[in-house]
């Protein structure tokens, strides 16, 4: 079955290895285009499906021409770790382990 992936976590998709990948350099969550921008979404899907006809080998990656915003500050945001949040993050982890029935933290 021929497949195409449209996604935004380039390093993870390429580490896994897929036949065809259209890379949207956006925050995780909106791989097919900006919210409410139907024209961009159509063009993104068109570019992705175009790889079905143009890719000749697995691990083909093409970067979408669309950008997220002029302000690049979103790049630093996802999973950022502020040293001042150390205890808060550990508490989040403790709650997560308890919810999932995992062993408590050792240290």
């Amino acid at each position, binding site marked *: 079955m021929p497949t195409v992936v449209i996604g935004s976590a380039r390093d993870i998709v390429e580490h896994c290895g897929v036949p065809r990948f259209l890379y949207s350099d956006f925050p995780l969550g909106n791989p097919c285009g900006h919210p409410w921008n139907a024209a961009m*979404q159509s063009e993104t899907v068109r570019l992705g499906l175009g790889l079905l006809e143009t890719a000749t080998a697995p691990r083909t990656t093409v970067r979408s021409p669309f950008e997220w915003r002029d302000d690049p500050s979103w790049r630093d945001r996802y999973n950022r770790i502020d040293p001042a949040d150390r205890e808060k993050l550990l508490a989040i982890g403790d709650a997560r382990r308890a919810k999932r029935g995992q062993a408590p933290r050792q240290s």
Partner: protein
Amino acid sequence: MNDDGSQDIPYMQRTRAYYRALGYDNDYVWAHFADVPFTRPTKSLGQMRIALVTTAGPPDRSNRNEKGRKRVWSGEVDAPPATFDTDLAWDKESTHTDDRETFLPIGAMGRLVGEGVVGSLAPHFIGAPTDYSHAKTLSADAPEILRRVQADGADAALLTAL
């Protein structure tokens, strides 16, 4: 800026650091395949039926069992849910998932079919589980997704990952 000059976000590195900060001792192990399959289509895009596969879930979370483990689910492209379960790891500070078309482009596909770019859209979209088990993905989920895609007569699948 990364060492290679790109600005692509190092998600694996950040995720490892984040889970260490949450107090986990072991790093997450992402799937990795040395050999990647590659199947060429036998038709032009204008003649192909395309199936959509997303990682979003149904709003009632009926794709989860009592332990929260997910299974493959489907919906009709002509009558998708008004909302989706998008409780996954995405950038909740920078954007939102209020517009379904950003992760399940049913409308965009309809426009491309109307323009003749794509032959047709498969009648069902499919929701892929996002559990942590590689074995479950390979032995149960992926074969079930393939079965559903083929049952709809699709020639290819478009996977859009939140």
